[in-house]
Structures are given as C-alpha cells and as structure tokens.
C-alpha cells in the first residue's frame, strides 16, 4: 500500500516536472522566435517601432477602441447632424424632400410637449427634465455626502449599512420602479398607510402633476444614492487620519470639520459626481417608464411626465419618418449638457482642490 502511494507520488512528480519542462522549452522557443522575427524585421527595415513615426504607431495601438467608438458613438453623432438637416425624410424608401438648417429645431421647440406646454396641459419634456435635474442632483449629492460621513463614523454594523445603501445599485431599475409605485399606491400603499393619508393618489388616476413629480424625484434621488455613497465613502476613507487628529486638537466642531476639511479634500470626487450625475439625470428614461409607462402619462392625467430622452424615443418609434425631429431633439439635449458641463468646469476651478 505504502509503496503504491510512493509510486503514484513519484510518477506524479515526474509528470509535473515534464510539463514544467515542456512549458519552459516552449517559452525559450517563443523567445528565440521573437528575437529572430525582430532581427528579420530590423534587417528588412520593417520594424514598426523604428519605421513608423510615433503618431502612426499610436493610431495602430488605439485602433480597437477607435473602431468600436466610431461605429457606436462617433458615426451616430455625425449621423444625427445629417438627419437634422433633412426635410421630409422617409426611411422606407430613403428619400427627402429638401434640406433645412433650423426647420427641425423650430418644429421641436414649437412642439407643445417639448418646451412650452399648451394651456390645458402641464409638464413638457424640457421642463420635467430640468426639474428632475435641478432637484434630484443637489439633493442626492447632499444626502449621499451626509450618509457617507455618517457611515464612516460608525464602527459596529458598518459593513451591514454599506451593503444596505449599496443595494439600489445592483437592483434592476424597473424592479425598483414597480416597488416604488406599489409603495405609493393609493389603495393600501405603504406611504398612505404609514402616514395615515387615506386613499391619497400619488401616481395613479387623480394624482396632480407635483405629486407624480415628487414620487419620480424621490425615486430618481434614491436610485442614484448608492453609487454616490460608494464613491464618497471610499474617498473619505482615503483621507489621512492625521488631518482629523490635527483638527481635533484644535477643538474644531464637527460641522466645521465637515465643511472645511472633509468636503474640500474630496472636492475632486464631488465634482466628478456632480458632472456625471447632471449628465445622467438629463438622460433620465428608465425611471419614468417604470412609474408611468412608455407614454409618460399617468392614467387620465392632463399632464405628461415625459423627459427629453422619452421625447426623442417617441419620434424614433414613429416608423422612422420623424427621425429628423428626434435628431434635432437629441442635438438640443447635447447642447444643454455641453453648456452646463462647461459652466460646471469653469465654476469648479476655484472650488475644487486637486
């Protein structure tokens, strides 16, 4: 028995040794081949590293990313400019009736569901989106800052709370939306039961514009908290503890430690979150669909909860004949985001400490 085990062991050792030797030889052979090829290329003056200038080599190395970006990002951007210039575009037979520069923009801006609402309705794509951006972004940033500072200062159950706050990030947006809609149900919903509001309608028939908007903003804010908390918490944990010890020795109140030390030291991260969440909020789509359906209109309501992106999709859907309007709409969105981001960059120069 013992000799058998010994035999197995020794044969196993032999096997592994031979495998190792095989790979060792393989590597040597490949190294030799590389050297050979290198020498050959050098001899023939074909070596990329010496023959082509730096920018050409850079282009070759970047090509995988560039190809993907060109197909899925750059070309669509150029394409939307092209579509925006068409008048009477028909996708099925690929014909146009003429060209225009501002025509499609004017159509979009004059559309009652885009910028200015008609007298008998409330809410337009732009107004809704702006309200969501300007309320949910600041609120969620402040909330997540406070939550991450609080999370950082507790010791017991820290991991537990971190997991709880991170859950929305890994949960499906639509699923969250359904749960939120259920929470705000008029008949037996959690919110109405909890606050004793009776059959107060939030997102169903009979709900007013601002009630629907409240629920939507609540949802948009809560859903984005997770990622922000995670980013802020990691950057707060990265701050050298000695700053806090120094502040403690100087009898700095908590409030001032927060505003004068924590916030400035993580300001690059706050700025990053600000820019990305403004852009993200401008592109809001899922949340509205989850709460109010693809029309963005609660049952029987005389208002719309549509966002700019929903507006654009609506025109993409219509058989492809309104693509020019969708293109104009998306260029307007692009313009708004571009201007706002530039403003933020300018404003951040004084406030962000790298």
């Amino acid at each position, binding site marked *: 028995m013992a000799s058998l085990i010994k035999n197995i062991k020794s044969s196993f050792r032999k096997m592994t040794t031979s495998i190792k030797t095989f790979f060792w030889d393989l590597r040597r052979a490949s190294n030799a081949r590389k050297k050979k090829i290198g020498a050959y290329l050098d001899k023939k003056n074909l070596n990329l590293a010496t023959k082509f200038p730096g920018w050409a080599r850079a282009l070759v190395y970047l090509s995988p990313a560039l190809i993907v970006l060109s197909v899925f990002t750059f070309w669509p951007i150029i394409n939307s400019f092209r579509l925006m210039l068409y008048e009477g575009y028909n996708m099925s037979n690929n014909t146009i009736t003429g060209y225009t520069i501002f025509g499609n923009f004017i159509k979009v801006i004059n559309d009652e569901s885009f910028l200015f609402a008609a007298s008998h309705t409330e809410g337009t794509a732009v107004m809704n989106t702006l309200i969501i951006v300007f309320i949910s972004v600041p609120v969620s940033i402040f909330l997540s800052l406070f939550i991450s500072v609080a999370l950082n200062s507790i010791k017991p159950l820290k991991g537990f709370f971190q997991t709880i706050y991170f859950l929305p990030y890994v949960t499906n947006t639509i699923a969250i939306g359904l749960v939120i809609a259920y929470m705000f149900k008029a008949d037996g919903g959690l919110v109405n039961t909890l606050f004793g509001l009776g059959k107060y309608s939030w997102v169903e028939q009979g709900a007013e514009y601002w009630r629907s908007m409240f629920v939507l903003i609540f949802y948009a804010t809560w859903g984005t908290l997770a990622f922000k908390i995670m980013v802020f918490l990691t950057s707060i944990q990265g701050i*050298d503890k*000695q*700053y806090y*010890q*120094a*502040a*403690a*020795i*100087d*009898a*700095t*109140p908590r409030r*001032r430690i927060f505003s*004068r*030390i924590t916030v*400035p*030291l993580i*300001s690059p991260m706050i700025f990053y979150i600000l820019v990305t969440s403004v852009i993200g909020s401008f592109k809001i789509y899922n949340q509205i669909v989850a709460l109010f359906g693809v029309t963005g209109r609660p049952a029987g309501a005389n208002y719309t909860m549509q966002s700019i992106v929903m507006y654009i999709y609506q025109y993409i859907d219509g058989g492809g004949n309104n693509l020019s309007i969708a293109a104009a709409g998306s260029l307007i969105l692009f313009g708004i985001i571009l201007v706002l981001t530039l403003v933020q960059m300018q404003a951040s120069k004084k406030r962000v*400490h790298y």
Partner: protein
Amino acid sequence: MELRLENLTKIFTNKTGTDLTAVDDLSITIESGTLVGLLGPSGCGKSTTLFMIAGLLKPTRGKIFFGEDDVTRLAPEKRGIGLVFQNYALYPHMTVYKNIMFPLENMDVPRDEAIQRVKDMAELVGIGSMLDRKPAQLSGGQQQRVAIARALVKKPRVLLLDEPLSNLDARLRLQMREEIKRIQRETGITTVFVTHDQEEAMSISDKMVVLDFGVQQQYSAPQEMYNTPANLFVAKFLGNPPINSFEAEVKGGFLMLNDQKFMKFKEVKDASYILGMRPEHFKVSEKDSEEKIKVDIKDIFHVGRDTMIHFELNGQNIRALVDSDSVGDKDKTVDLTCKRKRVYIFDKDTGKVINHG
C-alpha cells in the same frame, strides 16, 4: 507649564486577546520651559507616550498632569496642546495663512488679534513671505515651519513634536534642529519631542528620556547621559560610532584585559562583567606610569583628524578613535589607556552600571 507623568501605562490588546505593553509605568517630571526628547528604537513606545500626552490615546493606567491640572481624562482639544505631526498634516487645500489661522477660528479671539497673531507667528518661524502659498508649493523645511506655527499660534501650554525631523534631508535636518531650539527658547514653551535619532535628541534637548520596550531607561541631560549611562542599553544606544562592549573579568580587584592587569577597581567584586568603552575615550598612553594595555593593531584607518584602530580585547573586535599623530602607520602594537571614570562596568544579568567611584 510643568508636565508630569505618573505611572503612565498603555497596554494594547489585539484581536487575538494578547496584551502588548507599549508604555510601562513611566514617571517623568518635565520642568516648565524645557525641551525634552523622548528617545528610543522604533516600537519602544515613544510615540504612544506622546499621543497619550496629546490625548489622542487613552492611558490604561497612570496620570498626566499639566501643572496642577489632572488632564488624564480630558479630551485633546481641552488640554491646550500644540501637536506637530510627523508628516505635518497641513491641510493641502488651504494657504499657509489659512492653515495657521485654522486653530484660531475655533477660539474666541477677536479678528484683528487673530490676524496679528498669525503674522507674528509666521515671522517667528521665518515664513512671513510665504503666507499665500499652498503647502504643496513649500519645501519640507518650510512645511515643518508652518506646522510649528500652526501648533504654536493658539498659545498652547505644551508643544508636542512627533519625529519632527525625520522627513527632512540631512542638511535641512541640521538647520531645522537649530530652528526648533531657537523657537522653543524664544517662546519658552514646554516642549516634548519624539525621535529615534540619538544625535538629534542629544543636540537639541535640555533633557532626554530613553525608552526601551516602554520602560524608562534613563532621564537626564544629554551629555550626562552620554558620560554616565545608567545601563548597557543606554550606553549602546547613544554614541556614534557605537560603544565597544565585551565580557571582562575582575580578578583580585584588577580588571583583566587580554590577560593583562588593566586597572584596579577596589569597590568592584571579583566576577565576570560586561565592559563598555567608547571608541573616543581611548587614548594612546605616553607615560610609563599610567594604567594601560598593550594591544596588537589589526587595522588602522585615518579619518581626518582622528585615526581608527581596530584590535582585539578578550576575543572581541574593538575600535578606538585616537589622535592621528599619536600612532604611526607602521606600528604593530600600541599602548592604550582610558580615563577611569570612562570605563563602564555593567552587571552581566541586569545590565545596570556598577558604580566604581
């Protein structure tokens, strides 16, 4: 402000439940207005002691007094201390001016007075012209000055410095050493600083404490400590090049080196001891009458005005630093002597120095 530590003990308990005594029953009285260095190898509990004085760590046992006030249970901000961290902990997003102003903003100081105090303090530490700069635009030495100014601007009762010079290059270190001493003298503030560099501690402190594994080894003025070490640890820790230490026997009242009678010690009992002799305390004997020892030179190095001789005593390699004129390159042997009071005899078991008059 007199600073008094009474039986100060800090025990850290790690996750597995084992105790580590970082500071063990430390009792020191630091007189008002003196600069005291806490010295020891890394892990000896000197920073722990400093942080306990600062209040950032709570002592397990013992008391800390600032003058007559018992501050042991007091929060750091209520103790009135200024602390300079090893890496300065200057707020990177604030200018030098704002950094120094920061502690005052939390105090009830009129604005005009606060501004004046910041300016005076910046002048005192020599950074008056750099108030608008950010810490990143300053050299290490300048950052150090800002950190000291920030610690001093609130007029603390005690100034604490944690390894103040360890982040500076060799030349700046020499310069900042003198600066710290000057600033301390000018303000007259009781100062405690931590260092592992014996030369640094010796050069600036009025008094120093040597710690080993949290236990106080000696507390006295630097030169006194150098000349009369209390035990083998202190003797070995101080001095560069380090002290020669080797086993030697006292037989019939005579200290035996290489089987020769070297010196008579009447008060020392016949036994085996650890002997300590500093390289620079050796001298080439010129008179016949002196107590001396003849040694075979193994190696000889000339280092500027001194000459380093290598030889063997009781089977141990010994170095002696003597005047370069007193020994020639061709010499094979040399007669060496040493002042009686510079021969340190330590107990073999306890390491304590044995007084021989």
